[in-house]
């Protein structure tokens, strides 16, 4: 047993697990999660991250952790600005992949008679699937504006509201984005894909709030039992994938230049003070702005469809947060408030009550954290906590986390029986390809309730509400 149990949900991976570890690993999980973790390569990946220069405190793994590439999915690592690094592999290919939740003023009974038609209308309106092209056409100057201004661009063009911007992390725009560091190839891939959902685990869901755990936080967030919500999960599409690929090549060369060696090439990196890091940060933030604009546009398309069915409907954005990002943030390390670079790869930022970067309306209660479940299972709204801020750089889980490979999932059940099973539970599913439905069967994932119970027991975030799916759109 490589892990030392600290309490019922915390496990320590000691530095002697692997030569070169600079810090210990801190893993959040119950016995089931830890058993699954030990079966695959994620433990090795947590240790590999712990070997990176300038890492602070621990290499963290959230309870939805699983084997990724380079960093584990569910991995969090913060690096010193003085002697630390930034790694494109610590952010991932889908830069700023994230989730938003929009609140309707409808209850389940009002929605029920329209759910099939409304879902079909959204499926038609929001392009999804591999290589899907956007519902809006933009030229290169607009694309550069998107990369500079993110969701602010979308709002200026009428794809969203000013009120939305308050409820998107970083107010919908990462200020240090620099499109001059984004390659022509990335621009080419991004231009036709703005306003598209993509495929794989990306989805759009219509849900209903079926449980409230924290009345006070729910009231602050505007969540009511029986209320219909819309959840959108997508990212920066081909543009983000290309930025990551481009900068992995840059970092491979930078490692030679700066004399850095890493246990896995996907962890290639450059010192945060280097020119290469500056360029990657600029390009990564530009890709993140693309993702923020993408989700804002899709949200606008959803509003249009709801408007067709419910002319008086008004969907309010609860929050929009990424779970594949590196942010420069202020945190306390060894008693001092310092800037650090926090990589969250399949992990969600979760700022506590009082954090200055939160919108005024959430500042007293803390940041809404959105945790999507697997297809056909519940999702959760959590809230950030002081303990999470102090212990794990204001981070928490990002979803259920896979336990079954896609290959195994594909073999397990036919698409029509999966659809029937979900329909029997009152969940309508529309998908661009049936292969996605088979790969994304609920059993391919951990039980999301178990995952959020761990982060709540650990005190690094707290449950506010549970959302049950009514309809799912998959790419």
């Amino acid at each position, binding site marked *: 047993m490589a892990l030392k149990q600290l309490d019922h949900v915390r496990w320590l991976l000691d530095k002697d697990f692997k030569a070169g570890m600079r810090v210990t690993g801190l893993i959040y999980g119950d016995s089931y999660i830890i058993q699954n973790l030990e079966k695959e390569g994620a433990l090795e990946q947590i240790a590999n991250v712990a070997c990176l220069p300038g890492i602070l405190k621990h290499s963290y793994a959230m309870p939805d952790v699983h084997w990724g590439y380079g960093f584990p999915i569910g991995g969090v690592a913060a690096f010193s600005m003085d002697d630390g690094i930034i790694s494109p592999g610590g952010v991932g290919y889908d830069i700023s992949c994230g989730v938003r939740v929009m609140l309707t003023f409808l209850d389940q009974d009002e929605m029920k008679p329209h759910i099939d038609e409304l879902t079909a209308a959204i499926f038609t309106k929001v392009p999804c699937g591999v290589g899907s092209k956007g519902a809006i056409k933009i030229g290169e100057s607009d694309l550069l504006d998107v990369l500079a201004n993110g969701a602010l661009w979308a709002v200026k063009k009428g794809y969203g509201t000013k009120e939305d911007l308050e409820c998107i992390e970083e107010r919908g725009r990462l200020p240090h984005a620099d499109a001059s560091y984004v390659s022509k190839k990335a621009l080419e*891939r991004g231009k036709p894909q703005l306003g598209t959902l993509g495929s794989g685990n990306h989805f759009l869901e219509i849900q209903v709030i079926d449980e409230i755990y924290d009345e006070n936080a729910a009231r602050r967030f505007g969540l009511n039992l029986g209320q219909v919500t819309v959840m959108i999960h997508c990212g920066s599409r081909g543009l983000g994938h290309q930025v990551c690929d481009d900068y992995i090549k840059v970092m491979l060369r930078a490692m030679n230049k700066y004399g850095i060696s890493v246990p896995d090439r996907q962890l290639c990196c450059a010192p945060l003070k280097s020119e290469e890091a500056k360029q990657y940060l600029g390009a990564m933030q530009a890709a993140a702005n693309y993702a923020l604009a993408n989700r804002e546009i899709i949200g606008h398309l959803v509003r249009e469809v709801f408007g067709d069915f419910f002319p008086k409907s008004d969907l309010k954005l609860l929050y929009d947060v990424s779970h594949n990002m590196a942010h420069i943030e202020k945190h306390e390390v060894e008693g001092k408030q310092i800037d650090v670079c926090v990589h969250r790869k399949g992990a969600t930022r979760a700022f506590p009550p009082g954090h200055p970067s939160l919108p005024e309306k959430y500042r007293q209660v803390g940041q809404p954290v959105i945790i999507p479940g697997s297809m056909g299972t519940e999702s959760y709204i959590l809230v950030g906590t002081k303990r999470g801020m102090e212990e794990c750089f204001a981070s928490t889980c990002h979803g259920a986390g896979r336990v079954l490979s896609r290959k195994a999932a594909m073999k397990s059940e036919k698409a029509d029986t999966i659809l029937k099973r979900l329909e029997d539970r009152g969940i309508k599913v529309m998908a661009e390809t049936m292969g996605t439905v088979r790969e994304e069967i609920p059993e391919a994932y951990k039980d999301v309730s178990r995952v959020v119970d761990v982060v709540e027991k650990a005190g690094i975030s707290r449950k506010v509400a549970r959302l049950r799916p009514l309809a799912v759109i998959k790419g």
Partner: protein
Amino acid sequence: MPWKELPHTADAGLEIEAGSAEGLVLESAKALYYFMFGDFFALKPDGEDVVRIESLDLLELFVSWLNELLYTYDVKERIFYPKDVSVDLQKMRLSVNGSLCIAPKPVRAIKAVTYGCAKITTEPTWKFRVYLDL
């Protein structure tokens, strides 16, 4: 088929074998496309293209090659089928002339070809193991 799919919790891997570097370029392209589209071999070409790649080493050369194919699909909506492959192992350069074919509807999406746990060996045969971000 000289390739097989490797299991991965969230994503997928491919292991491809060939008798030479040039053969591995061709077979790795076929493996990637087979993964994305299923049987694509009956497609008819509607254009020509050239891909040139320079790299630090063999692993980067082959990962870059497959990522180039994803870029071509994303931007041109085409499969690039290699006809003429030249690998310069001294200078780590790859040059491929090939046909462009209209891509069928994909059955599975690939975001990117990663370096995570990727490996290339040249003895006794050329073998390339790579994991895909889906």
